[in-house]
């Protein structure tokens, strides 16, 4: 009972580990994706545009001051610079420098000064032109300062992002290890359960010998491979008395003892199975081996067997049948062994008998034998 609880807790723990690992891995995968999607801010380029366009506007104003006819270019350049200001101010949400309110306010201030000297509204000559030149130069210097600040911010963010990405990946690896670990444990548990199920399907739970299903498989396999074999059918004499007098506990212990002894007698080649109750079967491959095994088996019960300080006086009746490679159905093979076994029993037990095919003329008589 205690073991079962422990197993339950262990399983619960593994399931928990699996869920946590899977959850963490998924969340971090998402986080990693977010980090990868992170963009260079568009405002960096807008700032660059402002610096370049303002510079060219300044140059045109200087040409205009010298008296060159650049009025059309000046107007276009003014509009383009205006648009660059707008990109920054209207998209300020995406800029780094907005984090410090003073900077955006100064930029707004320069834009106001810029708008005051709109060449489509005012006549850019004399003192007005000097003021416009001075203001634009100031604004230009300031936008250069902002550009530096922006790119420093970008570097800082990139660095932070890289560090975070490394950290996320580290944690993700731990998550994946957890996943692999719990997955492996699950797989092992499943495999163990499967092996247990397969073992139970082909083995007798009491004696751990092969069961009827396994025997059937073995016989089919031999027949398929066209291998002839001898079948020993063993019935324990007076076993019922042991059960009745000493109880099932002793009976079971006796069966286990007998199974162990039978297994010891048989080599690697032979096949031992418990058919049920007090009936056992051994399969071997020569008459000599069959008889040798039968004699050794009879040796086991020669003397009384002591189980739990009870002397169990039992014997064995063994029937042996031969199966040619192309034999009938497996029940027929055992029917013949069964006939031989009863012949042994009839003679008083503690003996073995080899089945001999009854001549056709005697077959009528044979049918009357007990089966």
């Amino acid at each position, binding site marked *: 009972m205690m073991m079962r609880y422990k197993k339950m807790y262990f399983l619960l723990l593994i399931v928990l580990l699996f869920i946590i690992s899977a959850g963490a891995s998924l969340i971090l995968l998402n986080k990693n994706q977010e980090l990868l*999607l992170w*963009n*260079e*801010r*568009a*405002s960096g380029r*807008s700032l660059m*545009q402002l610096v*370049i*366009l303002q510079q060219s506007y300044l140059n045109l104003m200087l040409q205009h001051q010298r008296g060159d006819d650049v009025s059309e270019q000046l107007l*276009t350049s003014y*509009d*383009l610079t*205006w*648009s*660059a200001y*707008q*990109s920054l101010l*209207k*998209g*300020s*949400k*995406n800029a780094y420098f907005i984090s410090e309110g003073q900077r955006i306010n100064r930029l707004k201030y320069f834009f106001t000064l810029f708008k005051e000297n709109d060449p489509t509204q005012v006549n850019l000559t004399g003192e007005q032109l000097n003021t416009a030149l001075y203001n634009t130069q100031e604004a230009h210097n300031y936008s250069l300062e902002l550009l530096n600040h922006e790119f420093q911010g970008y570097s800082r963010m990139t660095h932070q992002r890289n560090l975070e990405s490394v950290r996320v990946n580290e944690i993700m690896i731990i998550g994946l290890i957890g996943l692999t670990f719990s997955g492996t444990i699950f797989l092992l548990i499943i495999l163990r359960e499967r092996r247990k199920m397969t073992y139970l399907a082909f083995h007798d739970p009491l004696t751990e010998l092969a069961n009827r299903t396994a025997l059937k498989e073995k016989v089919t396999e031999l027949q398929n491979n066209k291998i002839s074999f001898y079948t020993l059918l063993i019935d324990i004499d007076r076993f019922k008395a042991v059960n009745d007098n000493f109880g099932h506990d002793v009976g079971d212990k006796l069966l286990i003892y007998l199974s162990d002894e039978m297994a010891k007698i048989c080599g690697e080649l032979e096949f031992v199975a418990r058919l049920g109750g007090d009936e056992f079967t051994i399969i071997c491959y020569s008459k000599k081996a069959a008889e040798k095994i039968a004699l050794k088996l009879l040796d086991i019960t020669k003397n009384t067997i002591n189980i739990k300080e009870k002397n169990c006086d039992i014997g064995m009746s063994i029937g042996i049948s031969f199966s040619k490679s192309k034999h009938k159905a497996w029940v027929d093979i055992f029917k013949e062994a069964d006939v031989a076994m009863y012949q042994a029993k009839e003679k008083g037990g503690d003996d073995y008998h080899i089945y001999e095919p009854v001549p056709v003329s005697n077959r009528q008589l044979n049918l009357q034998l007990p089966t």
Partner: protein
Amino acid sequence: MLIKNKIKKSFFLLLLSIPFLSAASEKVLLKINSDVREVREQYTLSELLHLPQYEVRTNTPWTNEMHTYSGPYLEDVFALAGVRGNEITLYALDHYQISFNFESIKKYKPILALAVDSELLTVRTKGPIWVVLPLDDYSELNAALYHDYMIWQLVKINVNEKSNDDAL
């Protein structure tokens, strides 16, 4: 699909543009060149406004708020010019230029925005033509790569398509 592009009855826009049309209808807004097909097309505002107008409602990295942009599909303009937009180079008034394969963004139906919130674009407001992608409808478009394609103050498009002879 979440595409918010819809055919817009451009009455309002046309009404708005009448004063501009009368005064500046002769002014060329966009040139489309293709050496292979010997195409030298020039379009004025009224010509572009005569194409079906579509709306894109989206945020952009250069605007804090969502706006509605309207204008013809870039695809339709190419069809009008009789070019197949493969490798294209777009030029802006401020000398910005960008080259890319149009096929890579064709499915997003970019428009040549002529107006924002029903007001015609000027150079000061990134006009007269701004290539606008529906950024809010496709999360994958939210990358610097695609932001670069959204050229404003567009004046010229060079189409570098392969002729059939080359293909053979």
